[in-house]
């Protein structure tokens, strides 16, 4: 019976309306009353649960993810409205707000180096490093939720994927499909030459030049003239993650 309820004010109202539109019998009225009671009880139970486990929700990311999924199934999104009772109850309004500010901060600070494109794992690494000891731990899921909250901002924050690479884009830019293809081509080696592109896709010189110029102009790619005849183009966002993993491994 509980599952059939499918809480959402909308469904409830629908049920009410349907029930009312039929010349309802007393029995229907009683059923509606029962539904209302059950919904109120569920809401109370959920509130009690969240209140009791507030600290765990903030400090345990795995638990937090589970609670949020449960809320979503029930039809309550704690982040959808800052004024919503759930976000106040969960006390997570502050958490995501703070995370959002930190993410924006990191993206803005690195924009001139990576053209507004950063590996998701690297962003996580930087966030963890930056957050004070004792503050709530952060996982990838938190970043994804925060980024979706940041969508309305002019920055154009979103998650983009190139093959297996997950990146956070923080500049309002539409990458055309040629560039996206080249990014995917370079996802493991971090770099490419114009010759690599020609061999992989068979494009003519003008098309390749135009694509590479766009990527240079947007700042996501750096040029390496070590071999002047075949300059290499490196994707900074891909390299950073690779390098930091190596650096951390060497440090240990």
């Amino acid at each position, binding site marked *: 019976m509980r599952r059939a309820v499918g809480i959402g004010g909308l469904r409830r109202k629908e049920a009410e309306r349907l029930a009312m539109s039929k010349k309802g019998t007393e029995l229907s009225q009683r059923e509606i009353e029962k539904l209302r009671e059950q919904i109120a009880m569920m809401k109370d139970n959920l509130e009690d649960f969240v209140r009791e486990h507030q600290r765990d929700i903030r400090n345990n990311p795995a638990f937090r993810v589970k609670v949020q999924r449960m809320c979503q199934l029930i039809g309550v999104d704690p982040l959808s409205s800052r004024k919503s009772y759930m976000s106040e109850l969960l006390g997570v309004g502050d958490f995501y707000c703070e995370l959002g500010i930190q993410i924006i901060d990191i993206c803005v600070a690195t924009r*001139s180096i990576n053209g507004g494109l950063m590996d998701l794992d690297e962003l996580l690494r930087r966030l963890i490093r930056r957050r004070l000891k004792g503050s709530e731990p952060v996982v990838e899921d938190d970043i994804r939720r925060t980024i979706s909250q940041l969508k309305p901002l002019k920055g154009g924050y979103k998650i983009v994927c190139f093959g297996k690479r997950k990146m956070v884009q923080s500049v309002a830019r539409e990458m055309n499909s040629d560039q996206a293809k080249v990014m995917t081509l370079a996802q493991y080696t971090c770099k490419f030459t114009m010759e690599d592109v020609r061999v992989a896709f068979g494009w003519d010189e003008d098309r390749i030049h135009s694509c590479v110029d766009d990527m240079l102009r947007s700042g996501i790619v750096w040029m390496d003239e070590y071999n002047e005849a075949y300059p290499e183009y490196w994707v900074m966002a891909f390299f950073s993650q690779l390098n930091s993993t190596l650096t951390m491994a060497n440090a240990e």
Partner: protein
Amino acid sequence: MSNTTAVPTPGAFQFPEIYNFPPFFTRQPNESTWQEQRRQWCDLILAYYRHNRLYSLTLAEAITEPPFTNRQIHRSLRVDVLRELVDDLVKQGNASWTGAKNAKDSCLVLWRKPEVWASMIYQWANERGLFNTVLTVFELANGDDTAGQEFHNLDSVTLRRALDVLQSQGKAQLFVGTSDDDMGVKLFA
């Protein structure tokens, strides 16, 4: 920030992550990327020179060595790019060209500005009650009395710059000797 040893900082220099990025050694065609790149290079030069207590740089020689060559990734900065970077440092008061005028082939790297050296020396003299005494520049740099001071063993050209600052501030008088080492200085309140 205060480092009371007058010798190179122990421990290897920590290069920034970007130092292993091959394109870091190519002047970038994208203007805003280049702005960021030059800023990082300037910071790196000053940090590296400070860490190793190095004071001067001859461009043609320097590019074959760290930090301008990274052997692990087989990359070197070009001399004309280094020249641009030194010009940046000159503009911010952290370097000055030496050698033939307009040749731009050698320079001092002022990872600590002469004014700051000057005030350190002045403060030391004040604390030791050495105003109105003539000291040789040599003993200022190398004497036992200054052992443990930041400016102990300071490169002579840089030291001379610092003393020039004090002189222009009216806090010192320099006396020319038969050589730079003989040069004397009197500091006063």
